């Protein structure tokens, strides 16, 4: 009996809820931890970055106006879909990182749990970050957090799934939309994650994922005038400085890389609050 030839997956980009190839037609070879060929991934271009930003901007009004309950439900749904594809992610993470199946399984479980954790934050972060302010006069005065807008994310090179989920979830749970530059070294789990996102009732454009060269794409994202914030967690010191300088042009909120992040540790609220604004509304009190 001859062995059946498997049908391989084509790894493409994820922009506006669709899976296009890079408009540049470029691709690059992705290898596993032992150097073996895994796949040809799309190598996104500047135009792809711009298309992704356009999609994220288009998705922002709807996503930011969705109820916190609804956003929480969708993040929880993402966790469910990820759990359902557990075995696929375990083998992809094992291949990418060269870790044992057991270790890869732990990392996938941790990613699912992190999504559940952030899902619960959707309708609680306002209570923590908002305030009613006792001004010295007859005024109602209330401060509430609001999402910053479109956020660029340079995902960590290590932790192709757990790290990735840990940077995306805090940005979108509060109502931001994002453009993510996936780990250049290990991009394949990010596109499989996109398949999860696409089937989780997450509106198209809320998360857009690009694969390719971080050093090439991150500066385009950092300098883009319709991006409001940038998370440089996955950038090395040189790239991070360059991106922060570019981000100054329209005063983007910048989350600097913080050495080696321990993804297993309690993430705290910092990744959410880095991309939250505070709006304070006044109104007179009277009859």
């Amino acid at each position, binding site marked *: 009996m001859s062995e059946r030839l498997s049908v391989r997956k084509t790894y493409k980009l994820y922009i506006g809820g669709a899976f296009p190839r890079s408009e540049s037609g470029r691709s690059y070879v992705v290898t596993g931890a032992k150097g073996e060929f895994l796949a040809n991934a799309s190598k996104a271009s500047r135009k792809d970055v711009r298309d992704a930003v356009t999609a994220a901007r288009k998705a922002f009004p709807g996503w930011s106006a969705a109820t916190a309950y609804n956003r929480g439900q969708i993040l929880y749904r993402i966790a469910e879909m990820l759990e359902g594809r557990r075995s696929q992610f375990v083998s992809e993470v094992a291949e990418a990182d060269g870790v044992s199946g057991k270790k890869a399984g732990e990392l996938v479980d941790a990613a699912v749990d992190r999504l559940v954790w952030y899902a619960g934050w959707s309708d609680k972060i306002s209570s923590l970050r908002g*305030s009613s302010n006792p001004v010295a006069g007859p005024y109602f005065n209330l*401060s509430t957090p609001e999402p*910053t807008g479109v956020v660029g994310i340079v995902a960590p090179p290590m932790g192709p799934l757990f790290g990735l989920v840990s940077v995306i979830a805090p940005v979108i749970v509060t109502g931001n939309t994002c453009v993510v530059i996936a780990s250049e070294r290990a991009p394949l789990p990010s596109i499989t994650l996109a398949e999860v996102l696409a089937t989780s009732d997450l509106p198209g454009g809320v998360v857009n994922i690009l694969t390719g060269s971080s050093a090439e794409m991150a500066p385009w994202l950092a300098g883009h005038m319709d991006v409001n914030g940038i998370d440089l967690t996955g950038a090395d010191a040189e790239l991070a400085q*360059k991106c922060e300088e570019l*981000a100054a042009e329209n*005063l983007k*909120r910048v989350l600097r890389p913080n050495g080696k992040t321990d993804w297993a540790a309690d993430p705290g609220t910092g990744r959410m609050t880095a991309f939250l*604004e*505070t*709006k304070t509304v006044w109104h007179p009190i009277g009859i």
Partner: protein
Amino acid sequence: MIFEYAPAPESRDVVDIRPSYGLFINGEFVDGSGTPFKTVNPASEETLAEVASATEADVDRAVQAARKAFGVWSALPGSERAKYLFRIARIIQERARELAVLESLDNGKPIKESRDVDLPLVAAHFFYYAGWADKLAYAGYGTTPLGVAGQVIPWNFPLLMLAWKIAPALACGNTVVLKPAETTPLTALLFAEICQQADLPPGVVNIVTGAGETGAAVVGHPDVDKVAFTGSTEVGRLIAKSVAGTNKKVTLELGGKAANIVFDDAAIDQAVEGIVTGIFFNQGHVCCAGSRLLVQESVAEELLSSLKRRLSTLRLGDPLDKNTDIGAINSAAQLAKIRELSDTGEAEGADRWSPACSLPDKGFWFPPTVFTGVSQSHRIAREEIFGPVLSVLTFRTPAEAVEKANNTPYGLSAGVWTEKASRMLWTASKLRAGVVWSNTFNKFDPTSPFGGYKESGYGREGGRHGLEAYLKEIS
């Protein structure tokens, strides 16, 4: 009936201005190494005093003093830091009249504003943050101060901006090097004296005077852990760029081009008062000024005629006169900028109007000015004028109002006038701005966080939120 006003000048004898001022470093006034500069009264162009200019070396000395003091200050129990801040707040209240007169002399703002708005808010800000100093553990931002804060402030609210910077910094256990604006250094230097009267440990507060280079030296100093800046978006950009790749924590409170939206159901008389407060308070030298009036087409005519009638009653002149509504423009340079932008308003096709208003011969003055027929592409609808100039645009639907309001790279503040609560809340939720005043405008309070979206900067000043800028992140 026309009422004539007799002059009612506030006495300037309450303040004793020295002929020259040094830098305030490590608790003492010392000479600066740069060429001293003069600060003038913008209402008369008379020189008020000569002020030392701090060079990079002077700034370095100030930062060293602040670094040394940081050990002592941050080790004090919060309850002790609180008492120093309460002391400072009380001295500010005791010397409020003196400070108000000095502020009006150096800045040109009407005494009724410096006396009734600036000074009460300054004292309140110190009281407010004094109370936080021993309660940081409850605020949710951790309790670890950053170190030395380099702070650069503008000339529009000299002492109030100083309070917004220094009070939270000190409450959290940081020490500061603050640079006041070149045209308005005097109240900051009087504040230095207040620090001495309060027996504040030397080096906790250092004041370095000078121009842009001094500010750049403060921001760029490698031993500064925190940069806080209020000023133009242009300089804010440079600062954001300069700190790239460092560990400095930064907050920026920058420019604005706020929309003040008047719906057809608004109480017109109240809206008119709010529009006047919005753009003519402090000669429009306000980053959150309501400089773009968006009025619903159906009430535009009625509103504008009421507004013009009201503007004709404003009194422009001597800032120390208690009846004065509009004082002097802060500097010749700012006056030139206001003139230039206003001229483009006319050149680009908008209609210019000012009430009959005679301007004093000496000093820097600009009449309250309203442009109608303004379109969104006009420079006067896009650029911050930072003067008493209102651009009027119209809209038909709430969605159009919101779209026009948000059509700006800025996002500091906005106003909404309507009698319908659901419409007010809908509009407020759609506006991309850090402060929304509904049926009021230009209200400030130490408990109320202030700061912008988009290119109006980042970080908040005031309230519990204001502590975050001066504490180490917990995660």
